């Protein structure tokens, strides 16, 4: 992981990530207004000194809503990913380590699930669970699991044939030791990288669900929902769709860039920008 900050990708990614995380942690505290407070006299305003990002259809301060929305948005992305990675990599590692028919059965089933597009899969599950932020998060993580399982499995497999693992086998090490001490530590980095990048996807899917009315629900300040609510006013005040929309993009971008930088740093062979 040498000279991580050598690439612009890494620098920009880290900066964006820092901004997003800052907003996620301190957002609610530094929000200038109550994100739910109405201001009937200043509805659908453009940016002004009074409201830096303008106001929405109820005259609620967009900046405050974005800031208070940050925690849930980031929490959603990270939470969903962690959960998905957790479920996925357990399955994947089990498959990769045991091999044989267990492996092939698991892989067949995963292939089946992977054939269903992520968003579609998520939609189905979230409808079962019945909408709402938590359910959406669970749905996304379930939808992520197969992909993560695949990646962690291949990571394990690639490590399994390394000489130092062979050496451990030749020494007569226990399976547990080999997996925990020899395989996992070295299989980890691709999983971590993938996870970081997936956070951005999770954020986007979450926002999309909010937009479709299946994720967060009013009066939540989740960004996707904000876009959905403001859509019918978008011609009267483009800001109230543009601001939350771009916020989503920035959050996603932060994690995406950071993940790529991480990958480049961990794996110098891979050449791309």
């Amino acid at each position, binding site marked *: 992981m040498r000279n991580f900050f050598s690439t612009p990708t890494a620098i920009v990614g880290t900066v964006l990530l820092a901004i997003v995380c800052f907003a996620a942690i301190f957002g609610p505290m530094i929000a200038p207004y109550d994100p739910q407070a109405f201001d*009937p006299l200043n509805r659908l305003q453009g940016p002004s000194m009074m409201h830096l990002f303008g106001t929405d259809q*109820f005259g609620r301060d967009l900046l405050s809503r974005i800031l208070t929305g940050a925690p849930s948005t980031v929490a959603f992305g990270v939470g969903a990913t962690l959960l998905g990675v957790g479920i996925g990599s357990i399955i994947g590692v089990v498959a990769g380590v045991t091999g044989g028919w267990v492996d092939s059965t698991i892989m067949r089933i995963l292939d089946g699930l992977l054939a269903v597009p992520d968003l579609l899969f998520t939609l189905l599950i979230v409808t079962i669970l019945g909408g709402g932020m938590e359910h959406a998060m669970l749905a996304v993580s379930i939808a992520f699991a197969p992909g993560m399982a695949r990646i962690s499995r291949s990571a394990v497999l690639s490590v399994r044939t390394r000489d130092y693992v062979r050496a451990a086998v030749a020494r007569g090490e226990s399976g547990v030791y080999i997996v925990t001490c020899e395989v996992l530590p070295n299989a980890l980095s691709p999983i971590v990288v993938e996870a970081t990048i997936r956070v951005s996807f999770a954020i986007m899917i979450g926002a999309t669900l909010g937009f479709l009315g299946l994720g967060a629900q009013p009066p939540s300040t989740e960004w996707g929902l904000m876009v959905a609510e403001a859509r019918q006013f978008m011609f009267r005040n483009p800001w109230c769709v543009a601001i939350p929309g771009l916020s989503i993009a920035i959050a996603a971008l932060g994690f995406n860039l950071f993940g790529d930088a991480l990958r480049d740093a961990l794996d110098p062979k891979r050449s791309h920008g």
Partner: protein
Amino acid sequence: MTSFMISRRSVMMGLAGGLAATALIPGIDMSEALAADTPKAGGTLKISHSTRIATLNVLNCSGPAEYPVVDMLYSGLTRMGPDNKPMADLAERWEGSEDAKTFTFYLRKGIVFHDGTPCTADDVVATYQAILNPDIPAAARSVLNMIEKIEAVDATTVKFTLKTPFADLPISTAHANARIVSKVALSGPREKLDTTANGTGPFKLETYDSARMVRLVKNENYFIKGKPYLDGIDMMLFPDLAAESANFLSGAVDVMLVVQQADFQRIADATGITAQRIPSGRFVNITMRQDQKPFDDVRVRKALAMSVDRPTLVDLVLEGLGRPAYDNLVSPEFPYAIETPEIAYDPAGAKKLLAEAGYPDGIKIKLVASNRPAIRAQVAIALKQMALPAGFDIEVETMPHDTYLANVWMKGQFYMGYWGMQATEDATFNLLLTSNASYEDTAWKNKDFDKLIADARATVDPAKRKELYAKAQQLQLDETPYIVPIFEDILTASGKGAEDWTIAPLSRYYYAENVWLNKA
């Protein structure tokens, strides 16, 4: 608030004078007010709508875009006019007995279905029997269940006999889902009703594509000579509201069936557009389950009622395109509506009342709202803000409509309802408030109230009924079983050259046979 007065005024000015009139004196036929000159025949009217026409089954369709279509395809015995009074449709006249227990309807001569087969009393009987048959899904059953028997006296005369007296039968027969279907169609496989239509309405079904467009063409044999003027109507589906309004403004569509409050101002200001606000009894109501705390106590209900700033609510969620309501389900359009006293926004008073009721430090409670239509959540969110100073700590939970239907609707303790205007006071109360109402979801169950409604139902003399309904409404106002904060106007718009388009305050009636295209 001023900005709203202005915007509202400008709306008025932006519209035809006749419209302003309708806003004040309900019940004048729009066509007269708006008619530019004598109707021209011909042309195809393009109507945009944002919800699917999932079925053409007149007996149980319920979609906002399904009503206009069945109104164009089918005719009932009677039909509600823009003045909320029953008008002739298939039946040119009707008469009821003194005791309001038997009614006779006289059909027009020589009515034919779209396929050319004659429409006779037998078809009417068959249709009503189908509606009353519990095995057949039929939305009109609830307003016609007092019918004991129906018989065809001759080819054009139908006689209804009722279990209980019911003076409003000619209004019930106008029910949008009580339109006459041919005997043949009813005896055949009923699924065919979903995708085909053989009615007696002004327009015939040409193509039915629920995903894109339903195309109707002129019914040459319509029983009113010279009508309809139009050669055809295209019902075009735009699920995305922004897309719909944009297409309407670009002139790609002649009529925008439903205009969103958010868009109304913009559309009204656009040149050549006639945007209409039709005052209606459509309302949002806050359901409070009264067989459990805290709403078992009338003072709590009243306290909440005092914590709603209704005029502001009208401005915020309806963009001013509606009227504040004061917890009376009966809107001024109804013949027996009483003068409802305003309820001032008085958080302090509410707080005191709450304290008396035994909640000195307020009430923390969850208010559920479905996400469809958006107005439910909007009112809920506004209410949360308005009731805060009064000591109501409301947590709004919005949920997808399906989840709402499955888990909350008719079960929940505190949630948002949304109802279209009903045809009569009787229908309104029997929908929600009487102990055996179809959607009795408050557990209010007031015997005196039930009696008043039952009596009114049986009374023919208008004066007496007025008195009884006045009592019922007063009782309702005293008890506040529901909080009804606003009446929502019906909003629709027609583009350049689309003349005489309007919707009844009841909605569900569109008079498309009067519409004509004034295009060079």
